[in-house]
């Protein structure tokens, strides 16, 4: 289940390289990824150059899906793109390169499922799938607890929960330090 055993991409291998220049590499590659208009071509070559430069000897038999997601064989490819995407979706940051390594391991672990043939098997959503779900009738029988609920919030004005302005995306990666908490 080691990271080296799974087909690794630049990012993941860089994570385990544990070299001093490591953080520079990640920063650089993430920044460069965003500077280029297309994510193909130049970025790929740039990353390859860095991989060679670091003297990584992972058996990368040819370019591995840095670019289009359809190239991916399905198992973990933690590129800068993926990191950013996941952080945006989850609104939780990786925080450190150990976290990325852990994700790689988790994905490698999950990859074991591939070995199982599930042709013709229906996905199971609930063990109670053969039973009817009971729903209450749509009558209001309790409530009127606005005060109690408002008490739990940190920022309240009259009967409103106060949120900061929306429609503002998170700052782009090149505007912030990656892994500020490592």
């Amino acid at each position, binding site marked *: 289940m080691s990271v080296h055993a799974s087909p690794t991409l630049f990012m993941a291998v860089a994570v385990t390289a544990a070299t001093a220049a490591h953080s520079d590499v990640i920063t650089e590659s993430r920044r460069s990824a965003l500077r280029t208009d297309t994510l193909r071509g130049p970025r790929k070559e740039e990353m390859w150059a860095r991989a060679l430069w670091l003297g990584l000897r992972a058996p990368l038999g040819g370019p591995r899906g840095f670019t289009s997601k359809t190239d991916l064989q399905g198992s973990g490819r933690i590129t800068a793109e993926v990191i950013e995407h996941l952080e945006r979706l989850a609104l939780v940051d990786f925080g450190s390169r150990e976290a990325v390594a852990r994700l790689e391991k*988790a994905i490698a672990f999950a990859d074991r499922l591939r070995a199982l043939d599930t042709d013709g098997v229906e996905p199971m959503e*609930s063990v109670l799938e053969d039973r009817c779900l009971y729903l209450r009738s749509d009558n209001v029988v309790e409530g009127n607890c606005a005060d109690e609920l408002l008490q739990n919030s940190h920022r309240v004005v009259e009967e409103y929960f106060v949120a*900061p302005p929306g429609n503002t995306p998170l700052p782009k990666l090149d505007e912030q330090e990656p892994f500020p908490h490592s």
Partner: protein
Amino acid sequence: MLGRTLREASAALKQGQITPTELCQKCLSLIKKTKFLNAYITVSEEVALKQAEESEKRYKNGQSLGDLDGIPIAVKDNFSTSGIETTCASNMLKGYVPPYNATVVQKLLDQGALLMGKTNLDEFAMGSGSTDGIFGPVKNPWSYSKQYREKKKQNPHSKSGDSDWLITGGSSGGSAAAVSAFTCYAALGSDTGGSTRNPAAHCGLVGFKPSYGLVSRHGLIPLVNSMDVPGILTRCVDDAAMVLGVLAGHDPKDSTTIRDPVNKPLVLSSLADVSKLCIGIPKEYLVPELSSEIQSLWSRAADLFESQGAKVIEVSLPHTSYSIVCYHVLCTSEVASNMARFDGLQYGHRCDIDVSTEAMYAATRREGFNDVVRGRILSGNFFLLKENYENYFVKAQKVRRLIANDFVNAFNSGVDVLLTPTTLSEAVPYLEFIKEDNRTRSAQDDIFTQAVNMAGLPAVSIPVALSNQGLPIGLQFIGRAFDDQQLLTVAKWFEKQVQFPVIQLQELMDDCSAILENEKIASVSLKQ
């Protein structure tokens, strides 16, 4: 008195041998004495004393509510309790006071139980050691037992002092420690992948996981909606049945509870003989990592059933080796979804950033969750990405069906109950446990327990014997869906056969006569 079973304590209360207030105060004082175990996050002293007072009035007027009236219990801190802080051992909910009681908590309170406090756990119930919460790890009371310490003295390599205390297992470790140290008679845990059975095995308790759909999850802060159930930790099977009888049943507020009628109260018959019983031993559960001691106990247990006339057969659950992987994918995916509700806006922790909603959410979640939770959220989101959804999440759902079918096939072949180990080994020292990360440990420790959650079956861990080091070892029984009563009946028979010893916590108990009383009465109680 504190070493008695729930039923005995209840009888004592009814007969007036002790009052609820006296009982409550004894428990509270023992909680204070055992504070170093770190089993409780919140001790609800005032609430408990008030409840005790009311219970006392009821007993005086001959109007006791039932067998649980006046009985001290503890609740894991991921169950909502009205007016009492509920944290899930996380910064995200520190200071959060729910405005309502979880249904299971309400049911216990309606029966007059005394709520001693909220117990410690792994953060958001993610973990198998009760070591990863913000309030610190929980110590296993057996670390301080005479049985363990005497064996340790014989070992020339053992360290002296407290530094090598043992974990309780998780994630309901606080509940297990609370019951094991006699600070309450029963405790609620939650069981998503073995979180009730694992600490029960490590702390020498009965840890019962009901069938999914039998007990309401309303108010239980969810981890994996399709696998979570409230769990029950007690010192004997009859007590667990008694609590189950109170908790089981349809809840209109939880649409995943079934509407079939439930026997109330739940009284277990004593099996006269087991000759009509068929026990299944899943061969895939014999893994190389299983400790030889547990393997031998497992084998002896099977022999015991056979010698008493039961049919014991080997069964196959062919997809067992994929079960933990499937659980890992489904668990992290559902966690990613369930943890999305924590944004700091309506409850819980909120950071100081006000630049934008997303920035506020992100910072709040960074500050509120620990690495384990964040790791699972990110893993889950990865598996749920559009490009990965089919290959990971849906695939895992399909594998889940295969695993559930394995169990169905086993039971259809005439097996009544499956017998397996609960854990790979006895409780390990904390310093040993933390050498690996949370995910690795969970993948190792949940191996025997999580398949049951995926199939939604009832299961119970029964303490069997002490290991060579003087630590408890438990074995697990798995039953058919909604056959909880039969499962517990078999477990009760088995418990009577093995006569698991009582923990000897002399150093903690000042009063010697109390100890003698405990030993006498506790050993008698198991000979029903």
